[in-house]
């Protein structure tokens, strides 16, 4: 449990922005992932959450070298794979796998299910005991598909079944590590639970480690041991699941968690919600200092100048913030006297710094 199976240090993944014309010129970079560090331990599930466009999928793809990272270091099972060539990676592909987000695009529509699940054996030249067909049918059975549907095409399956096919393909070679790139976000809620439970069972059976990329906080809470929160290519907070959901310290994590509706309508109508204003800044031209400062309720001058490092605030709990917020409720009480705006009855406006602090326009709305 103590050895990390995958260790990422300061990973950067930039995509060049080209201006086409008579001559194609590079005008900048999309900094999809800008220096993230994380470890995935043996047998654990690390959840990677963040809003759309924060670079979490890119990070997942770069982690198993489906992309060539711009900078940083990736160590998988003790082997540095940062600059490994296609050929060097080939044998490692049996150890690390991926399940994709879109079950409609991740299966080749021109191949039968049998052929799709047999592809790992063919590509890696593995001859399973009893033949490929038998192995494929066992896999289909394992993930809850009818093995008789071996000769069917993906278009004849539902989204959930297709995702099961994707899972069968990824576990065919008995990997030790799987990147799950939003494996359930394209599925109906009722199907999501089935697939998540399948992933859970398979993890126990094959002693797998997962990097679970998702934006659905409740799914992540269900499956993860630890959770990393990403924002604009940076990790904001990383800690064990229970701490993250019970006592988040980063303002962004708090905002993210407050977006989850409560199932109890009375509690829902009474709770405080942090509504982030504005949009995700462009990853081509990220804000100076802390990337979250433009939308942070608590941002100060320092945040615009100095980028906070990911530092340990408690054992196993790292956050990247100059002003960690211990408790949401407490903060509101501290902030209230500073605001000289008249308060509308239904909302509290906090943090309109008149003299200091970066740009205004961030509202703190609650009921």
């Amino acid at each position: 449990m103590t050895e990390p199976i995958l260790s990422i240090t300061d990973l950067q993944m930039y995509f060049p922005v080209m201006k086409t014309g008579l001559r194609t010129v590079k005008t900048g970079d999309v900094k999809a992932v800008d220096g993230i560090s994380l470890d995935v331990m043996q047998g654990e599930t690390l959840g990677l959450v963040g809003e759309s466009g924060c670079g979490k999928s890119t990070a997942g793809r770069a982690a198993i070298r489906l992309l060539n990272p711009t900078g940083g270091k990736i160590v998988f099972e003790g082997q540095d794979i940062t600059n490994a060539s296609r050929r060097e990676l080939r044998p490692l592909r049996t150890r690390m796998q991926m399940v994709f987000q879109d079950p409609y695009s991740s299966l080749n529509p021109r191949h039968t299910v049998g052929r799709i699940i047999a592809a790992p054996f063919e590509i890696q030249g593995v001859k399973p005991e009893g033949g490929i067909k038998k192995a494929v049918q066992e896999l289909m059975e394992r993930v809850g598909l009818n093995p008789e549907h071996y000769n069917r095409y993906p278009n004849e399956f539902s989204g959930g079944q297709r995702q099961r096919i994707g899972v069968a393909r990824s576990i065919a070679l008995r990997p030790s590590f799987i990147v799950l790139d939003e494996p359930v976000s394209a599925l109906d809620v009722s199907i999501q639970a089935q697939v998540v439970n399948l992933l859970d069972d398979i993890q126990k059976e094959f002693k797998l480690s997962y990097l679970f990329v998702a934006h659905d906080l409740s799914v992540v809470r269900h499956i993860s041991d630890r959770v990393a929160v990403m924002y604009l290519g940076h990790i904001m907070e990383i800690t064990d699941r229970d701490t993250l959901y019970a006592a988040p310290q980063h303002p962004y994590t708090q905002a993210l968690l407050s977006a989850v509706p409560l199932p109890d309508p009375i509690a829902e109508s009474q709770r405080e919600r942090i509504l982030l204003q504005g949009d995700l800044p462009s990853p081509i031209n990220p804000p100076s200092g802390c990337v979250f400062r433009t939308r942070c309720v608590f941002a100060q001058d320092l945040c615009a100048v100095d980028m906070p490092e990911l530092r340990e605030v408690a054992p196993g709990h790292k956050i990247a913030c100059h002003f960690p917020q211990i408790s949401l409720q407490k903060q509101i009480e501290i902030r209230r006297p500073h605001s000289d705006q008249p308060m509308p009855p239904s909302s509290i406006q906090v943090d309109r710094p008149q003299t200091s602090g970066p740009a205004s326009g961030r509202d703190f709305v609650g009921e």
Partner: protein
Amino acid sequence: MARTKKVDTTQAVAGRSPWRLGWDRFRFNRVAMVSLGISIFFFLVAYLSSPILAILNLDPYAMDRSAIDLDNFNNPIGPWGGISTVHWLGVEPGVGRDVFARLIIGARTSITIATVTSVLSISIGMVIGLIAGYFKGRVDEAIGRIIDLLLAFPTFFMLIAIARPMAERLQVALGVDDKNIATIILLVVLLTIFGWAGLARLIRSDVLSLREREFVLAAESLGASHGRIIFKELLPSLWPKAIIFLSLSLPGFLTTEAALSFLGIGIQEPMPSWGVMLEMAVAKAYTVPTYFLIPATTLIILVTALNLVGTGVSDAFDPKLERNQ
């Protein structure tokens, strides 16, 4: 419950492939089915022309003096260009060769040139388009410029300018007696060189979008080689496009061959081809209109049928493009 389930699975275990789905849609397109039937009929007659003529005891080169009127500018005896039970489609004015025999032997020549050229240019176009779209970047850039050049090139004028002298040189180089053999080879080669570019561009743009689909990434995550991704993952999705292109380029090359032969730079007398027949017939178009109309109509029917098959195929494989039928 369990019993019914078992029946269901055994009945529908084999899946319906995308090919099968496309064929099922194609089958219900009556125009396309009729056109397909006509096209197949033409191909069969063309390639069975030798046995057919042997059975009918006809020879495309034999001159039947009894069928032409030596006192009337050697025009065929009888109405409709001399159509009779012996000569089904009449005889040629002047020499009295059987038009039916020449038409189906000529069909074989014309269809062979068109088919070979189409298949070659499709193979080259698919491979080059796949490579350009898959590798992107510099490779794509270089191939793109070559395609631009080929598409902008005035192919037809160049063929007119160089086909005859090159065919003569090729004949010497190959050491064949019949100049037409050299001409056929030359036509196929030249038309292929200029014919693949259009399809390559189409395939390239398809591959550019196809390669971003996650199943390509999935193959990559399994450690698949470039070759496997290109030929096993991407190629199967491109066959429908190739078939559509085949059914559209066949009539294209058919008419090109006819036009070149008509202009006297393709196949030469006495070997029959549809272009040669048209060239011979134009001078007699007013005195013996049947002689001109028969090859012209045949060409129009086959070209139209092939085009309609092409439209049918593209409809069948692109269900999003719903037409009112």
